[in-house]
């Protein structure tokens, strides 16, 4: 139609896609607590089932990431810089990748958690997944932020949600320190290679919380203008 450039001026909003991507990444992380529960019980069949689910969710997240990158043409004018949005998506995607890596390592080495540390392991995983949940909640505020035009009360709401995210990440750090201390006490009685990988997986779970926190940092950059 000849005069339809009025309708063509509206690009498709990236907000919905970004929320969906974060949801999918968070869904990957959410599978970790049941995965660890099954691993503690040495139920490797169940672990395999959950790992497959995580892999599938990670693929979904990947496809929505590609979708976003394709739907942000260069001529698109947005209230926030395009590069910042793409960085946010990259940060979100790390959560999905990290969850898959943790699950893969767990099954690949059929890891056995020393009984003395099992409870703290569970605690650490839950805390890191909490951070991912909080990142998801904060990202979902983006639609209200676009609605209010990036000003006023909505900014404060988002700031306080990011602060909560930081708090959860810090808590995760504390648990991680405690778990390392517990493991140090008993590590001599365990097969060295196993211990190596136990430290490795503790490290990765801690990184999951850091990844969630990085999503918060990216959001803060969006607000800072």
């Amino acid at each position, binding site marked *: *139609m*000849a005069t*339809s*450039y*009025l309708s063509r*001026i509206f*690009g498709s*909003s990236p907000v919905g896609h970004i929320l969906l991507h974060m949801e999918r990444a968070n869904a990957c992380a959410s599978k970790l607590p049941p995965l660890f529960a099954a691993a503690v019980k040495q139920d490797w069949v169940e672990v395999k089932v959950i790992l497959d689910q995580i892999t599938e969710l990670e693929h979904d997240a990947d496809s929505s990431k590609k979708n976003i990158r394709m739907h942000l043409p260069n001529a*698109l004018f947005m209230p926030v810089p395009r590069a910042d949005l793409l960085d946010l998506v990259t940060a979100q995607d790390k959560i999905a990748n990290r969850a898959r890596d943790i699950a893969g390592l767990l099954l690949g080495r059929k890891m056995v958690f020393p009984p003395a540390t099992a409870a703290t392991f569970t605690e650490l995983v839950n805390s890191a997944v909490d951070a991912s949940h909080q990142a998801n909640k904060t990202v979902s505020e983006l639609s209200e932020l676009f609605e209010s035009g990036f000003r*006023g009360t909505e900014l404060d709401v988002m700031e306080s949600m990011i602060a909560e995210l930081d708090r959860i990440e810090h808590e995760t750090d504390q648990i991680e320190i405690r778990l390392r201390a517990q493991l140090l006490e008993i590590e001599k009685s365990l097969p060295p290679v196993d211990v190596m990988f136990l430290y490795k997986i503790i490290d990765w779970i801690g990184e999951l919380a850091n990844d969630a926190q990085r999503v918060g940092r990216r959001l803060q950059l969006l607000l800072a203008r």
Partner: protein
Amino acid sequence: MENIELYFWLAAIFGLFMAWGIGANDVANAMATSIGSKVLTIRKAIIVAAIFEFAGSVLAGGEVTSTIRGGIIDSSVLADRPDLLVDGMLASLLAAGTWLLIASAMGWPVSTTHSIVGAIVGFASIGIGMEVVKWNQVGTIAASWIVSPLVSGIVAFMIFTSVQRLILETPDPFRNAKKYVPIYIFATGFFITLITLLKGLKHVGLELGEWQSYGVAVLMGIAAVVIAIPFLNRISIAESATRAERFAGVERVFAVLMVFTACSMAFAHGSNDVANAIGPVAAILGVLQTGGVASKSAVPLWLLLLGGVGIVVGLATYGRHVIKTIGQNITHLTPSRGFAAELAAAGTVVVASGIGLPISTTHSLVGAVVGVGFARGIAALDLGVIRTIFMSWIITLPAGAFLSVFFFKILQAAI
């Protein structure tokens, strides 16, 4: 002059055809924002558009019609050759109509206003002689094509910024929306009425003094608020509503406001665009009635009525399809944004109509939408579209000119 009757019917038919085309195509842009934000159904939008397009063309369409009719061509040069003016105006109508058809079929961006102005300048400068065209007038018109999207963009930016300050960024946007939206409704009724009145309604036999105009404008503003209040009172949200629900409530309040800005947009469109069809007809009629190149008399009211009817018929027969297509693509424009864009564009167009400048309603609306975007109001704008507006300037003017010279030569040879 011979063949007076033939000329008369040709002019009337071409003019009606143009008006039909404007109703079928251009009105869609004026109304699309309301439909895209789901404020009006297509049926209601067509009724609103019909009423206010008609009112706009009859009440405020006179000045622009005069410009198209006599502002571009220096008719005193043609005093002894009235047939040149008649043939030229007929050729212009034909050229603009043909060009709009071709461009529509090919999906090229065109503006009715630019087509007709290009056509008139074309037949006059190439078909007759450079000295026939009032070049400084044409310069003013061309400048207004650049200025009008800019102005409506800046105004839209300011309106939306005020909405952010007063409503969106406050802790309780819903309560503030209910508090301030009536003020915006008043302003819409007040300003549109005031601009229309200040330019005088001489041709409908109504002439008000300055203070009377202000009085009537205030009354119209109050009337709009009184009509809106029952609708506003019906909107409520639960005390426990989440922030997302509150923002949804805010948009429902703005939806009421948007009905009024949609009315003013239709009015503005009628006031400016009916002239594209009726201006050349008025010029031809002037020659036919007096037998010579007409002196500056007011545009006859019945001609404006005719243009209004043509637009409404175009809207009713074909426009609904176009409105539907465009409206579906503009779903990203929520009422709090759509109203700001519409009010800014309508204000700009009505002012231009008052001064007698033929501008493009669509370009003004695009300018206004970009203005809201710069106030960080819209999630994503495809600025590639701005290119198509420049295309419209670069392609449409020469195309209209070329076609009108072509038809002018044919008419000269044939009749």
